[in-house]
């Protein structure tokens, strides 16, 4: 399997679109999942932003200096595209009467993802971003710092507050066993 740096070099030097297609195949899952969480399950919008993000990645690939992992850099561009979208369109929904008890059952993975995406609506954007990058994408706080430009302390507090809100939301939606 060809490594990222070789693929990037091929795209920059020869405009190799097959190499870029390989990069998209490799990272589309992480970027699309990340954006689906940020848009709280608006999958069509998330995929549109993901397409825009990959176009920007292609256009700016020669500015990638390798100081961070390609994945971190790609997430940073996706996050910036999301913020740009958010500036244009702002909508906040409240989730009402959503039955989170389904999470205890053996539901399909695809259904789990849908529920978690909807669950993100109870968090603000900064909390969604930090929680998703930390827990779902497995990034270190330092890497989240590169993506979001938040100070380390702020990232930690966003993660803790986000976790607490999610647990409260899940517990409050639980039907009582009594």
């Amino acid at each position, binding site marked *: 399997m060809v490594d990222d740096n070789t693929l990037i070099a091929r795209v920059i030097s020869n405009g190799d679109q097959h190499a870029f297609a390989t990069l998209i*195949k490799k990272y589309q899952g992480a970027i699309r999942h990340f954006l689906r969480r940020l848009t709280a399950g608006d999958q069509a919008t998330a995929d549109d932003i993901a397409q825009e993000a990959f176009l920007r990645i292609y256009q700016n690939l020669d500015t990638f200096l390798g100081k961070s992992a390609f994945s971190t850099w790609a997430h940073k561009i996706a996050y910036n595209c999301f913020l740009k979208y958010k500036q244009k369109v702002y909508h906040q929904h409240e989730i009402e009467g959503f039955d989170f008890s389904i999470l205890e059952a053996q539901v399909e993975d695809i259904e789990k993802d849908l529920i978690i995406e909807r669950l993100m609506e109870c968090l603000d954007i900064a909390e969604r971003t930090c929680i998703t990058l930390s827990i779902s994408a497995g990034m270190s706080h330092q890497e989240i710092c590169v993506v979001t430009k938040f100070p380390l302390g702020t990232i930690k507090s966003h993660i803790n507050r986000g976790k607490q809100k999610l647990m409260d939301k899940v517990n409050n939606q639980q039907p009582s066993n009594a």
Partner: protein
Amino acid sequence: MKSNDDSFLTSLLQYHTRLIDQQFVDDIINNIKAKNKFRLKLMVIAVFLALAVAIPLLISLGEDLFFINTLSSYSPYIITFFLLSALGFGTWLTSDDF
């Protein structure tokens, strides 16, 4: 479900499915090709426009600097406007975001 169970939340928040979609990849590559094609067309138009301006200019240089005289008869505001427009177009054409 335990409210203080951190591992529960961690497992819940994982990406449970793998999003792999060839159509998604194809759409992006087609988009890149379309943008490159559009950029190439604009470049060709820009070159033709440059030639269309440059050739009469070169010819008129031999004829008592006719073009320069004509140009100097225009308002400096118009000349500045056209120079800025040309400069802006050139910058846009060569920018990374284009």
